[in-house]
């Protein structure tokens, strides 16, 4: 079966990345609009972004991964989740969120809007027939 190829734990790491970003947004949302220490939210954002980057790097090194299918599905998912992230960003802007909290929230939403399409595209592509890897395409 095509999914029996050795693949990095993209779903597990992606879910962890998503959980960290959600925790950061919950932390900020629980304190806004009052003053809030950004340290925990920045730490969660950085850890989440690192996991996302690590996930993509690990996937890039995978031989025979169906990149064509990954990109095909990922770009549409990215469009959908960019709209969703944009809506959430709009609500924060509408309520005069500004400065550090806005930057951290915006970056968190960016990581969110990238992580979910990676998870969707990976889940579809892992069951696709083996295709030329990134180095060969």
């Amino acid at each position, binding site marked *: *079966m*095509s*999914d029996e190829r050795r693949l990095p734990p993209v*779903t597990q790491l*992606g*879910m962890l990345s*998503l*959980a960290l970003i*959600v*925790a950061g*947004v*919950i932390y900020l*949302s*629980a*304190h*806004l*609009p*009052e003053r809030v220490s950004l340290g925990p939210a920045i730490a969660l954002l950085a850890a989440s972004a690192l996991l996302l980057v690590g996930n993509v790097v690990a996937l890039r090194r995978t031989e025979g991964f169906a990149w064509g*299918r990954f990109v095909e*599905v990922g770009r*549409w*998912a990215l469009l*959908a*989740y960019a*709209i*969703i992230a944009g*809506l*959430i960003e*709009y*609500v*924060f802007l*509408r*309520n005069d969120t500004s400065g550090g909290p806005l930057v951290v929230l915006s970056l968190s939403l960016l990581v969110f809007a990238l992580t*979910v399409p990676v*998870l*969707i595209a*990976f*889940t*579809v592509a892992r*069951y696709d027939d083996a295709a030329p890897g990134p180095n060969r395409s």
Partner: protein
Amino acid sequence: MADVAVSPHGAVAEADLHPAPQIPDFEIVPRAGLPIVAAVVVLLVVAIAVDEKWPLMFLHVVAGATWTIIDLFLGFVIGPILGKLSIPARIEVTTRLMPKMVLIMPTAVAVTLAAGWQLATKLGYNLTSYQYHGWVVASFIVVGAMAVIALGLLEPANIAVLTELKKPRPNPEVVERLMKRFIYTAGATGLMQVATLVIMTRLATG
């Protein structure tokens, strides 16, 4: 209608012995539903812009109820039924039900969250001085946990099973595995929706 046959990869002999079930033609993302989604998004943006209590409450309650009911219904009613259906019936239900979920669920979740946050800001529910702020934060945590499961497991399984069924020769093992993942995660989020109901009714009654 372009029908395709389900059979394991390369299992021609087996497919000859056991006729493969027919898969009805379907769209992974139903294009007919996109204008409706666009209209809902426009309504949401307008409701947030005008910042009136009723439109925000309407959108939050309608989208939230849709999200809650679908999770509970899928997890505890449709899921167990689906598991007991014959393979052809399961494919028939899947190809008709799951494309709709691709549009309905992300829309319901986005509207619930965006309208809910705006409403909480307007009513002062997200201020730490609010009497039931702890309940509000609890709802954030429950929704966050549901979001991680839904976005990390459920939604990818939904798209992947539909993509698999679109192939000329879908792999039944993959379809089975992804459907199980979809049903189990829908059940898990359904359980968490009970917590949402407790929190929301607590907040509504004060």
